């Protein structure tokens, strides 16, 4: 038994509470700012307590009343775009990764290693380092300003393939052997045995990939010029540069709250899967 030191326990709690306050401060600021008038941000110190304008601000931003966002589309529409982007990326990545991991682990075929390495290379090249050529490819395919252009180039994922591969390798051989003796074909084995076993991994990956998709910034910024395809995360920056000296902070913060809400809810609701999934990624 390790000794019990009450003062040390007290220090632990104190540091943790302090940490939570410091980490939570930006959210407090954003929430408070979203309930105040723009006049409260003109001079003096910014408001630190809730105002009366909350409902009003959220209504104006969600409906883009009086072009408050400086673009032709409302925040609710842009959140819908972000949602489509996040869902297509998450589901698409999981689908194509689980299929390719299945092929790599359970089949022997020429160029198997080459395929594995080609997929692995994608892990090394984040979109940020090859933005211009990727943009040119997407433009030449006529995919600018479309949901396809927003999602498909980001859908190949070495990380997810790697994760599923590791997981499949940990499944006992006897399962596949038994399935084969019973006369089940590969796709039946995949559907009836592998897929149910992978539910936890899929859930964990979904959280990570949904957040990845929702939070994309550079990519939508490059390939959308049509306001109908703007996402909620990228519009924030446009608001910042709207009018120097007279930045509508209450509107910006209302938009940031809306931009944070869906991914934070996903993390909190699926916390258990998410934490396990993250830690497993490293293995």
């Amino acid at each position, binding site marked *: 038994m*390790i000794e019990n*030191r009450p003062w*040390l326990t007290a220090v*632990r*709690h104190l540091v*943790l509470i302090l*940490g*939570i306050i410091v*980490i*939570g401060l*930006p959210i407090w*600021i954003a929430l408070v700012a979203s309930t105040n008038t723009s006049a409260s941000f003109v*001079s*003096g*110190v*910014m408001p*630190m307590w809730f105002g009366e304008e909350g409902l009003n601000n959220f209504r104006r931003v969600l409906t883009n009343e009086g072009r408050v966002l400086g673009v032709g589309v409302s925040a609710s529409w842009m959140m819908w775009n972000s949602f489509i982007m996040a869902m297509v990326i998450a589901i698409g990545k999981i689908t*194509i*990764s689980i*299929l*390719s991991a299945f092929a*790599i*682990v*359970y*089949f*022997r*075929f020429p160029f198997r290693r080459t395929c594995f390495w080609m*997929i692995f*290379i*994608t892990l090394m090249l*984040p979109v*940020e*380092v*090859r*933005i*211009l*050529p*990727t943009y*040119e490819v*997407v433009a030449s395919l006529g995919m600018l300003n479309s949901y396809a252009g927003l999602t498909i*180039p980001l859908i*190949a994922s070495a990380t997810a393939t790697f994760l599923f591969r590791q997981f499949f390798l940990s499944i006992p*051989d006897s399962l596949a052997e038994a399935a084969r003796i019973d006369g089940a074909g*590969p*796709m039946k*084995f995949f559907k009836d045995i592998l897929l149910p076993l992978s539910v936890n991994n899929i859930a964990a990956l979904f959280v990570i990939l949904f*957040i990845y998709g*929702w*939070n994309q910034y*550079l990519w939508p910024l490059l390939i959308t010029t049509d306001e109908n395809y703007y996402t909620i995360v990228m519009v924030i*920056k446009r608001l*910042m540069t709207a009018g120097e000296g007279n930045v509508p902070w209450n509107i910006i913060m209302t938009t*940031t709250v809306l*931009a*944070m809400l869906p*991914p*934070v809810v996903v*993390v*909190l609701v699926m916390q258990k899967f998410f934490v396990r999934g993250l830690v497993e990624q*490293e293995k």
Partner: protein
Amino acid sequence: MHDNVVFNNKVLPYFLLAPQLVITLVFFIWPAGQALYQSFLIEDAFGFSREFVWLDNFIYLFSDDEYWNSIRVTFVFSGLVAFSGMAVALLLAAMADRVIKGATTYKTLLIWPYAVAPVVAAVIWWLMFNPSIGILAFLSWTLGHQWNHYVNANEAMAVVVIASAWKQISYNFIFFLAGMQAIPRSLIEAAAIDGSGPFKRFWQIVFPLLSPIAFFLLVVNVVYAFFETFGVIHATTLGGPGNATRTLVYKVYEDGFVGLDMGSSAAQSVILMILVITLTIIQFKFIERKVQY
């Protein structure tokens, strides 16, 4: 490996791999090749003429003071983001490790910033440090310092570092905590019986055992700071004041999409790719080594 038990099918595996391979080829390998090819060309801004110039783009870059400045800025920025994010996370994980009451609540309240987009984090911190109305600028003013990240290079750097590191704390925290909880209790108990106090135990047992995780996190954080913080810079400092926060990724974007200097931007992409590949190999070597333990 499943060497004995495999399905015999000549065509199916290619069908299963096809979607992944097609996307990889079209959106990863082809653009990467394009970048490599363009890095050897000089093209005018309208694409009317191009000339093959061998390594001129690279030679020009490495003789350009601005590029060296950008390299320096990127390393300082990444170092600070990785170090501060990991230090705070380690402290919080060490505190949370042995807490029993309220452990779940603490964890929940510490992990959600993972979900916040870097650009969103940046905008909120930018407001808090706003020289005329920000609460943190006001606090610094009461301490006798006039905060202004529009003018002061170090202060601009501080804001983007804080915003980027803040978001990473939860990620680091999850890994450090998982690592600490995997340390056998008997080790700690043995040390306690031998009479070493909690601080000595942390530095002599827990900390060394965490070093593989710390190394893994270091690479992850550096990669994050290098490549995923474009939004942080783009939404706030725009690389300024002067060139104080112009990181390599931001410069690639600026030279390519604003300056329309294709050759230079492609050459910078190639340098970044080499950098990422090096980092990934280091990380991979490390994972392999750990597996052998």
